[in-house]
């Protein structure tokens, strides 16, 4: 068995195969067709600095087991904190009640260990390698770098969070998969002030990374400088012009647009239940012909990557849109079973306290032929979106919005002045059709994203090259 990062070889399973077998039998004792046991131990640590002080150092350990039973289209779920066998058996009996029959729980077939290759290997995962002392020092260096950048930097807060999550998932089809994942993230938030004007900048670094990422690739100082530069730049920014404009979105995190506007509508639950308009669009043109969209859990060092998903399915690359045509959906076990499809490694859950949902992993737009500068040079008047904050979509009606924290005005093909607090809106049904040019500078941002669905938050990566939309409604106060 391999893991996406090294785990000590002597580690015993979180729950013994004998007990897992017993739980699976109990779980199907009322006639459930499918049962699954998911055991997890999660360790989180965090440090927070503000007003030049390290406010506190934190640590948490949460562990437990969730049992899921599927009967037809119905899911029963119960969990127990900890690994007490009595509590686990009780959780299995409660979950079993989703099925109302009385057939004896069949013994699951012999377990087959899922031995998919890891998408990447961490030799020195940051959460294991970095001492608290080193992390505290990183925050102090970020603080000093941001404050040293410009006299107008008024307040700096910085936080370091890392985690390890070890899990075991086994089911009544005989799947047995284990993995351990590591995440680390350093966030710097800067408020700059000039007289009565105050502005805010934010930057992060991290992912599923090794300790040397924070020395070689993304030192705390560089994260701090990005945040400070953004805050100071925005002091001189103007309000956006309200209206519909050509919009060019910077590479990387801008991929949050394809995630929200398009990705959610391609998740197997909405497809199977026909609550997504994409359910009937396979083979149809759903994006401009220059657009190819991919979801893959195998992007190196991204937060959205893994060896196996939270149902034990190996991570894979799934092409959703090829040259504008809808060619594939994302599937978890439940929805794939019901829709007669194959799981694509998109079954994910926030913790053992939740049952898995069909979720994106790393989702991006593939690169096109253009140099990024060309996309701006041919716009007479429009908006260049450099930093987006969050975005949201209502998957039922397609309405989306994105908060753009730092944008630039495009006039006659040039970036002329910074713009603050722009909000982009439109409908996901046609957003991908409005792309008229895709550049060749793909960046997949696996450092910071978390996606929320049905109250469950899950780390994801998003990406795109520089992309231009023909016309998007830009919110603002200037008319």
């Amino acid at each position, binding site marked *: 068995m391999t893991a996406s990062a090294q785990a000590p070889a002597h580690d015993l399973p979180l729950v013994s195969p004998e007990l897992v077998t017993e739980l699976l039998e109990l779980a199907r004792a009322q006639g459930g067709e499918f049962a699954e046991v998911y055991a997890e131990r999660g360790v989180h640590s965090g440090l927070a600095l503000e007003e*030049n002080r*390290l*406010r*506190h*150092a*934190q*640590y*948490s*350990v*949460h562990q*437990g087991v969730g049992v899921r039973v599927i009967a037809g*289209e119905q899911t*029963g*779920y*119960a*969990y*127990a*904190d*900890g690994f007490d066998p009595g*509590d686990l058996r*009780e959780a299995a*009996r*409660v979950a079993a*009640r*989703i099925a109302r029959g009385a057939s004896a729980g069949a013994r699951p077939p012999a377990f087959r260990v899922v031995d998919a290759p890891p998408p990447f290997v961490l030799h020195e995962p940051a959460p294991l390698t970095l001492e*608290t002392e080193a992390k505290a020092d990183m925050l102090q260096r970020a603080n000093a770098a941001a404050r040293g950048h410009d006299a107008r930097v*008024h*307040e700096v807060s910085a936080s370091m969070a890392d985690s390890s999550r070890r899990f075991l998932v086994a089911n009544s089809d005989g799947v047995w998969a284990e993995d351990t994942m590591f995440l680390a993230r350093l966030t710097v938030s800067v*408020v700059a*002030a000039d007289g009565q004007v*105050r*502005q*805010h900048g934010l930057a992060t670094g991290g992912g599923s990374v090794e300790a040397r990422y924070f020395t070689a690739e993304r030192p705390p100082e560089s994260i701090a400088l990005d945040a400070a530069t953004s805050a100071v730049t925005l002091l001189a920014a103007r309000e956006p012009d*309200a*209206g*519909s404009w050509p919009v060019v979105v910077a590479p990387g995190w801008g991929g949050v647009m394809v995630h929200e506007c398009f990705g959610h509508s391609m998740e197997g639950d909405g497809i199977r239940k026909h*609550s997504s*308009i994409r359910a009937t669009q396979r083979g149809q043109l759903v994006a401009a012909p220059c657009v190819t969209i991919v979801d893959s859990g195998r992007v190196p060092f991204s937060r959205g990557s893994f060896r196996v998903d939270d149902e034990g399915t190996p991570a894979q690359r799934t092409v959703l849109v090829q040259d504008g045509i809808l060619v594939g959906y994302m599937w978890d076990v439940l929805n794939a079973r019901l829709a007669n499809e194959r799981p694509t490694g998109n079954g994910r859950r926030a913790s053992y*306290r939740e*049952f898995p949902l069909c979720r994106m992993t790393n989702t991006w737009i593939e690169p096109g032929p253009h140099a990024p500068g060309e996309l701006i040079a041919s716009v007479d008047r429009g908006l260049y979106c450099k930093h987006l904050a969050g*975005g*949201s979509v*209502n998957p*039922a*009606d397609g*309405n*989306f*919005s*994105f*908060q753009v924290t730092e944008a630039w005005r495009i006039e006659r093909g040039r970036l002329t002045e910074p713009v*603050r*607090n722009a*909000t982009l*809106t*439109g409908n996901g049904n046609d957003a991908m059709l409005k792309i008229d040019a895709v550049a060749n500078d793909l960046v997949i941002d696996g450092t910071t994203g978390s996606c929320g669905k049905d109250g469950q938050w899950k780390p994801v990566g998003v990406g795109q090259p520089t992309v231009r939309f023909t016309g998007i*409604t830009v*919110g*603002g*106060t200037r*008319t």
Partner: protein
Amino acid sequence: MSLASDVARAPGDREALARLAADAVARARRAGADEAEALIEHTHAFTVRVHGGAIESLKQSGTLGLGLRVIAGRRVGFVSGNDLRPESLDDLAAHAVALSRYATADEANALPTPDEAGTGDAPDLELDDPAIAALAPERRIEMALTLERVALAADPRIHRTDGAHVSTHFGDAALANSHGVARAWGASAIRAYVVPLADDRDGKQQSGAYGMVQRQLRDLADLEAIAREAARRAVARIGARPVPTARVPVVLHPDVAGAWIAEMHAAFGGDQHLKGTSWLLGRVGSRIGSELFTLVDDGRMAKGAGSEPWDGEGVATRRNVLVDRGRMAMLLYDTYHAHRAGARSTGSAVRSYAGVPFIGPHTLYVAAGTDSPEAILSRVDRGFYMDDQGSYGFDDVTGDYSYQAQGFWVERGEKRFPVEGVTVASNSLDMLDRIVAVGSDLEFESSIASPTLLIGEMTISGS
């Protein structure tokens, strides 16, 4: 913990939690903490989701967790976990003390004393309804099925829903600190909502969502009324389209006004004023908005969805008037920031067991005005009625407001047609100043509530 019993928690559970909290504090002191505080929460939850006339999922959970905050040498360490065996508590305590070494020593780091926390018993806030725990699982399932069935039957253009959901929560909490503060309390909640989908042109669909959360089962609105309101919202959106960019009066539906005050709340935090990052910096005591506007953050409103007798540090909660008829009346503090500012905690520390306390809202609402929502609409000659929005669009530092918006175009006091694909923007200080009407329609359906508000002018960005 027993997941089998879906009925009320065992008698004496609360006392057992209190003993466990006191024991954790004692272990932390032995591990070297100068001061220690333990919060333990034991919660039970049951969630049913139905779709297409059948159960989609049933989930039952029981969670027991501990958060332990220690101060050693005026430095703070914090640990949390759900393994509460004695040897694990000793490990957690030792870990907390070891971690505190890395934090900065700060004279303001101190847990509340009994004097600071407030003496005396809390009044009965009616937060805990045994009828919720006693509700049979079959009845909860039937409630969700009813919500969906009524929504589907409400209009011929509704053929599907995105599900109906009923969930119940009840639990107990106990907090103890090494100064002798000891609290224990319980609370329950029931939440019900449904999301009908209405057919629109060109294969498009519109969604309506409506529901509420209540502390008392009897306060949950009639399920058929909830479902019909959700259906009304979905159908009303059929044919929605953008409008041209304009500066016009905007009516904020209670949901939209509520979302605004929820974002606004952080600007009243004493932490933001100490850091100099609030858009309300230097405004305490001065007029920040229309005299029609009064904003209250009440920890002790009976049956309030955000009410609790004690805050996340065991300090007595209270009714805090943040804005009194347009005047910014006060700042909110937890114990640390109160010490920094030379003030007293306002009982505003919020948290779960798994996190450190921070300054946050309890039951937050805009006081009701005198105009009916119909009377407010009739005052708009040409404007926008905003009843839904995107999730992102507020700037904490500047108070800038810019949201994706849905609603209706209004002419001569009447809604003319549904609108989508637009944004609504302004700055919160301008909005506060331009409140020209406050509705009488204040209803408490979550921990945040507002009546209808009319803002004299905002910018619509559209086609």
